[in-house]
């Protein structure tokens, strides 16, 4: 057993991290939220150049055929920088969804892999709206009877995270009645979303620690006071113990283990709780400055709130974990 990221994983994370840091995501996020996609799409192409968009695409369709651990690493890093756009849908969900359908996979996945295509996927009831359907050229809805293309509503709904532009699914046209891998696609979405939440939480913690070192009150950095220290220590503890669940779920997904659904749900619960605790704590540590629209903290905080309920609520995933455990005992 080696339950640790490899040197290649770490190097991969470092390269994505460097790229996103250099690009400066806060400005990209603000533009994206205003419907100005140019800087975000440029960043998307940069991510494609280092292989992020090709990770889950099979080699025969121009991808890397990497395993879900690579996905977890990439999404945690993109979460750390609050990368906007339908990254979960395009990079994690679509390749899994189309895996059993060679024709559709051959039609769409090469474009996903090279970054020339962007996909959005709606999967009611947990993913009722299509994220960023206005920039996506592949718009799919997973239904009980197969796969449909759709036309999105003209204007997006207002998400708490302004950079999440959610569209209602309107005109629908069935394109495949063949079996899709909807369950596996959902699990990939859950894993990617959990990884994003963990990354968001880690960034919120790191920024809060920095702020607590700089900000002086009563003549000392606020980070020297136990009230602040203990809040941040609790966040660190939750994040540190959520990460192994994420990696464990990725290993399960990679091995197509019988426990996959249980494990990705457990990861989503833990990463959602930890990421959200990080968000609440970060705001408290920053105080009023964090509550302003001008400060970037809000971009991370609102995304943490949105993703906590995206790809299945905490209650749904807890129930799924418990159902799986009860089923294991019955068998």
């Amino acid at each position: 057993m080696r339950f640790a990221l490899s040197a290649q994983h770490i190097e991969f994370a470092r390269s994505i991290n460097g790229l996103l840091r250099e690009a400066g995501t806060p400005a990209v996020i603000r533009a994206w939220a205003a419907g100005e996609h140019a800087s975000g799409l440029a960043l998307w192409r940069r991510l494609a150049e280092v292989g992020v968009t090709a990770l889950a695409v099979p080699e025969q369709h121009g991808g890397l055929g990497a395993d879900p651990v690579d996905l977890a690493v990439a999404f945690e890093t993109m979460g750390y920088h609050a990368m906007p756009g339908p990254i979960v849908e395009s990079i994690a969900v679509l390749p899994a969804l189309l895996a059993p359908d060679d024709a559709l996979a051959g039609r769409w996945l090469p474009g996903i892999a090279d970054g020339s295509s962007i996909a959005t996927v709606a999967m009611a009831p947990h993913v009722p709206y299509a994220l960023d359907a206005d920039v996506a050229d592949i718009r799919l809805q997973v239904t009980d009877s197969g796969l449909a293309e759709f036309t999105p509503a003209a204007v997006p709904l207002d998400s708490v995270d302004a950079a999440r532009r959610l569209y209602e699914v309107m005109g629908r046209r069935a394109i495949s009645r063949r079996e899709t891998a909807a369950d596996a696609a959902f699990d990939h979405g859950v894993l990617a979303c959990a990884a994003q939440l963990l990354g968001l939480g880690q960034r919120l913690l790191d920024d809060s620690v920095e702020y607590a070192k700089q900000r002086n009150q009563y003549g000392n950095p606020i980070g020297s006071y136990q009230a602040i220290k203990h809040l941040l220590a609790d966040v660190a503890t939750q994040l540190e113990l959520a990460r192994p669940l994420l990696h464990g779920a990725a290993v399960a997904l990679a091995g197509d283990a019988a426990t996959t659904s249980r494990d990705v749900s457990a990861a989503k619960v833990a990463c959602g709780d930890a990421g959200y605790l990080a968000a609440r704590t970060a705001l408290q540590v920053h105080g009023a400055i964090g509550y302003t629209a001008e400060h970037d903290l809000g971009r991370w905080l609102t995304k943490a709130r949105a993703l906590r309920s995206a790809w299945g609520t905490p209650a749904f995933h807890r129930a799924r974990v418990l159902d799986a455990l009860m089923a294991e005992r019955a068998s």
Partner: protein
Amino acid sequence: MDLDLDERTRQFRDEVASWLAANVPDKPMDSFDSAAGFAQHREWEAQLADARLSAVSWPEEFGGRDCSLLEWVIFEEEYYAAGAPLRVNQNGIFMLAPTLFSHGTPEQRRRILPKMARSEEVWAQAWSEPEAGSDIAALRSTATRTDGGWLLSGQKTWSSRAAFADKAFGLFRSDPDSDISPAAHPPRTPPKDRHRGMTYLMFDLHADGVRVRPIEQLDGEPGFAEIFLDNVFVPDADVIGEPGGGWRVAMTTANNERGLSLRSPGRFLAAADRLLELWRRDGDPADTALASRVADAWIGARAYQLYTFGTVTRLADGGELGPESSVNKLFWSRLDVELHETALDVLGAQGELRGEWLDGWLFSLSGPIYGGTDQIQRTTVAERLLGLPRGAR
């Protein structure tokens, strides 16, 4: 990255599981904090030792099996899954022994460890004092130089297992000038000086000058005790590390306690498993709030298991346990309380009756206190892991 056990580990796991299946007593033993239970648990430890299973991570020459950390974690999983008795000599096996491996002499290891492995000698810890709890460096008990050894005087308290144990280990102030407690000096002494002049010693609880006063705990059993020491002679051979260098030695023990060894994931996995069984039998599926807490208990136990696998991998690669041991303790101490609270709530009106779950809950309540309170651990995480500036305590 994988979670696969290699062939050797799988074989070891199977051997342990079948031995336990054949040997774990059907009827639960009395609490090891009662006289009768202590004797039962001592016998059980001898039986474990006969199978070379009482201290599997030790070298073979001392009764162990040279197990890797991973094998030890797997052993613990099997041990608790089998419902085997709690470890009466855990202070010795999991706290003192690692200290002896790091800082003891070959002679000390040869003399002490084989008897410890068979629980012919059961060990108590003697850290806290009435005025030195979280602030352990404020301890006042003294070790005074005498011919061939030291004379110990003072008072220790909250000493786990001391009511029935044979021996104890702890820190003593061997340089009177280093006593910087507020009564001795004005405060504001530089913190670094506080850790000088302490010596790590082992002593016999039945020696002349030792008086042990058992203290009843919340569960009514004397799980800890006060130890009064009045010029108790301890030979030089029972000093661990250098005289005056006891703080550094003690920190090894503390890291072992908080880190991997004191609470292995096996305990929580087994408890979560029993909780799932309780829920399956008695739970009301319509009570989704309680169902969520049952799910959280398992998720927490699984998180701790995987976190430990990560730690084991890191240590096998030559890493060290640092402030992560405080993260570790913060997590399991809270998990343990919440898991048992959940079980009591599933039991409903039956939950107030004495039994396995209630005893487990009472025990879990001590977790956030002993081995450094959760507040001390949070400060450690904040300063040493997150790098926040030191402040007033």
